[in-house]
């Protein structure tokens, strides 16, 4: 089967991509759309460095075909924040040393963002369970958990202040 056109919505923009049925979403994102935030860490569906948001759910973009997500809304780390306008999670990861080499961080933050939508005030244990699909080989996770809890507290305080 040759290449087909698929329309996907990435970070709020409609994109028409041409892909073979066997093309994985992570390859479409990185190689065609030049969104190199989501990383390929393991290619065996274990590490979560490629995590993106698809229709409001965390998904490993290395374990889904682009063909499967035609018409869907995809958010990558690029859609969450930028160097000039960082997301609270990005600020907190920096503040609490939630990264060392940084390779897993885009997946960590994309997943953490969704986790805090699902559960805005998680306990430490809920953060660990909710982040179980994202592996980090540097930090030992302690500071990642701290960063996420700090982001949750700040986001909740901001929400309360707004109300």
């Amino acid at each position, binding site marked *: 089967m040759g290449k087909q056109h698929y329309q996907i919505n990435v970070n709020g923009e409609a994109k028409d991509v041409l892909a073979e049925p066997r093309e*994985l979403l992570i390859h479409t994102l990185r190689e065609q759309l030049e969104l190199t935030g989501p990383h390929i860490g393991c290619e*065996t569906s*274990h590490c979560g460095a490629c995590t993106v948001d698809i229709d409001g*759910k965390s998904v490993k973009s290395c*374990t889904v075909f682009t*063909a499967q997500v035609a018409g869907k809304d995809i958010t990558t780390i690029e859609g969450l924040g930028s160097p000039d306008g960082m997301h609270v999670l990005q600020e907190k990861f920096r503040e609490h040393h939630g990264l060392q080499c940084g390779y897993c961080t885009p997946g960590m933050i994309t997943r953490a963002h969704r986790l805090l939508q699902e559960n805005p005030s998680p306990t430490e244990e809920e953060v660990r369970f909710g982040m*179980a*699909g994202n592996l980090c080989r540097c930090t030992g996770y302690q500071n990642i958990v701290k960063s996420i809890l700090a982001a949750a507290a700040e986001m909740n305080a901001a929400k309360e202040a707004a109300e």
Partner: protein
Amino acid sequence: MYDTNYHKPSSVADAVSALSGAEDGKVLAGGQTLLPTMKQHLAAPSDLVDIRAIPGMVGVDDDGDALTIGAATTHAEVAADPTVNAKLPGLAKLAGGIGDPAVRHMGTIGGSVANNDPAADYPAAVLGLGATVITSKREIAADDFFEGMFTTALEDDEIITAIRFPLASKAAYAKFPNPASRYAMAGVFVAESGGSVRVAVTGAGADGVFRHEGMENALSGQFSESALDYTDVDAGDMLSDLHGDGAYRANLVKVMAKRAVAKAG
């Protein structure tokens, strides 16, 4: 990954004809096992038949005596479903503990059952609850469905459309996950209904999911953890690999069975 064709049929009949017309067709549901398998060149299907867009493939139907769950319902959907949580909370808990959040958002009940991985969680619930596997051709009792690791009664062009779980008065699942993969090293589903007890074990058996008659008899006499004290799990029937040898797994099965009984109350 090798080249493949992609089909997205809108009816079961179209899915079956795409599958039977293909040289080496495979059903694609959530793809959480199939894609990694294809990446490693352990599978190279000529055609993928994506069944998720077929109406009626997703959701939970409650007819009073049983819950029927569409084959393409994801683990996250089962875990969050209010009917499953009210009627078969042990099943909802099992679904909420499969893999990790991203896997649960894509992986489906039909895919897990059709694949029959020896360490998958759902086969234990299907066998433990005495569920019925509903396919494009027929209905298959759980006791006749699982035929050893990665092997089921399914024919090549047969598609699971739903699983029907009879309600139980008590039902719970306990597993000891491998800390890296989160697959069960031993998982035990215990269910009591009308005085009879079923105990299904996954992750540990050398030939995939199985029922443990000794535990079933002991628990039918008295549904308590201590009833399991004098039951035997044969280490020779267990998987033995770098994650744990047969004796270790045999012990884990007993410990998980007790935990499941305690959870089921």
